[in-house]
């Protein structure tokens, strides 16, 4: 049986210009050879930081962008040649405030999109009712969307994407900006889709979300997949390493870069926490980089220093902060 969603060496380049008077044309490679395949009923996660190429990949799969090269298929059909056929069978939901008619009610929004997606007129009322119940908006459907919270809008988005009961669903950062309780409810709804037999492609930059929901994950950074497998596989990649966290108060880039040169260090990242920053240094198993790290941070105002075992989050950070190898863009 062919994969339900298939990306084969997808590339996408954008052309942009810089300058006001002396304009220069630039080419930005947003996606650089992405390949993966989803089986029926699978919940697959594309995980990566902002600007990694996740949304561009999804937009090629849902027929909104034409790939610069490579091929994408949904349910065995090419997304460029059979765009309309594919559109009838996919649902697309993205995160954030946009994508709804604010001056209209949720019911008006759903009725309009039900028409656009060819939901049988005799079934529309019942289908909209089912979905409002599924996303917990029943009783609020006649209110204007402009008065909705971010979480309510996101749930309405999901209802809109499911109107035509598509077998394949693309969710582009659906929990972005939603409060923790709302995000948990949304994750429950997303998991419900998988249980209902839908094939789901989810993009997120939250590692824990991908871990909690996805059967498999592909980590994307700078337009390429740098790791793929089950959450367990990714955890195994770092389970025998060591992580040193050093609290610092103001650190220059040069100092951070110097830490990367320490023998056995696999990644260095800096996170902002309140007034301070935390330098997170990952090293291979059997290494103890603390002394060398502290020596290289000579002159920097330091706070607490801790050593711990790596987590899945560290695996992700290590993958997306790795320096590009020579010739890699």
């Amino acid at each position, binding site marked *: 049986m062919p994969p339900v969603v298939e990306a084969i060496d997808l590339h*996408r380049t*954008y*052309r942009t210009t810089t300058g006001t008077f002396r304009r220069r044309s630039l080419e930005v490679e947003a996606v650089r050879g992405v390949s993966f395949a989803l089986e029926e009923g699978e919940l697959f996660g594309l995980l990566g930081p902002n600007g990694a190429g996740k949304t561009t990949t999804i*937009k090629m799969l*849902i*027929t*909104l*962008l*034409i790939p610069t090269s490579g091929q994408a298929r949904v349910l065995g059909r090419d997304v460029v040649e059979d765009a*309309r056929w594919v*559109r*009838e069978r996919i649902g*697309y939901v*993205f995160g*954030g405030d*946009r*994508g*709804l*008619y*604010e*001056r*209209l009610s949720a019911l*008006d929004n759903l*009725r*309009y*999109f039900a*028409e*656009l*997606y*060819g939901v049988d*007129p005799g079934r529309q009322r019942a289908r909209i009712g089912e979905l409002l119940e599924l996303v917990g908006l029943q009783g609020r459907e006649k209110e204007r969307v402009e008065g909705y919270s971010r979480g309510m809008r996101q749930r309405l988005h999901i209802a*809109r994407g499911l109107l035509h009961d598509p077998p394949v669903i693309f969710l582009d950062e659906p929990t972005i900006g939603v409060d923790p309780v709302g995000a948990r409810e949304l994750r429950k709804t997303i998991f419900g889709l998988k249980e209902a037999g839908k094939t789901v492609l989810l993009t997120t930059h939250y590692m824990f979300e991908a871990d909690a929901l996805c059967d498999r994950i592909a980590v994307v950074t700078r337009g390429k997949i740098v790791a793929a497998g089950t959450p367990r596989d990714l955890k195994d990649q770092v389970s025998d390493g060591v992580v040193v966290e050093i609290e610092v108060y103001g650190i220059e880039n040069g100092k951070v870069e110097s830490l990367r040169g320490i023998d056995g260090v696999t990644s260095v990242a800096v996170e902002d926490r309140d007034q301070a920053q935390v330098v997170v240094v990952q090293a291979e198993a059997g290494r103890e980089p603390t002394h060398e790290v502290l020596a290289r941070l000579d002159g920097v105002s330091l706070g607490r220093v801790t050593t711990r075992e790596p987590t899945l989050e560290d695996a992700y950070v290590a993958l997306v902060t790795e320096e590009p190898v020579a010739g890699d863009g």
Partner: protein
Amino acid sequence: MAESEPAAGTRSSLRVARVLGRGFALHLKMMMRSSFDGLLGVLWPLFFATIAFLMFRAGAGGESLVFASFGAAVMGIWSSTSTSAGSAMQRERWHGTLELLVSAPVHFATVLLPVTVAMSAMGLYSMVATLLLSRFVFGVDLPFEHPVAFGFAVVATVVSIGAMGFLLAVSFVRYRTAWALGNLLEYPVWLIAGFLVPLTLLPGWVRPISWLLAPTWGVDAIRDAASGGGAWPEIALALGLGAVYLTIGIAVLETVLASARRAGSLALA
């Protein structure tokens, strides 16, 4: 059992009709909900109409005031469509709905057309306001000799101007700044379509351009129906030109959309 071809065709036509109808109702509802937009839609054309009436009253007066009244009334429909069709597409971009509309499994023309026809239907507001202004403020004795033909002429004008807006909106889908084109065309069409100045006063080379504009025939039909002339040929010409605009728009729409999908310009706000 397999569906027969005629049954599938009927189902498909019904679906198109429903998408058009629902889209028209939704966009009209959305526009009517902004009282500020509505107020501007009524007041803006009234300023221009007032200037026109004052000029005509100072000049020839009499019959020409009737001519100006109906011309100014159609001006509102055209202005509403030409300037709003672009901003409507831009608004879809800002709302993030343009991509959702493009990715829906219907021909995009069935999504776009109701938006522009709703815009021109909104222009009816200003048409009524302008006619009331000319009757009750400027005391123009407006004739309505053939009310049925007058009604048809108004509908034909609204639909054909909506179709013209559709043709403009096709370019707005691809180019973000094309809304300026709508603004640019607003005033020349006032002149070339003979809203305020009879076409006979324009240079000869302008007239063929006027004949290609549906509003020229729409306003002619409205004036003829009001004054008791035979408005039906003009109604047919306005509708015929509207159909031509639609055909051209639909023919280039797929190419425009493919270009937007290649350039990645749908999501740009």
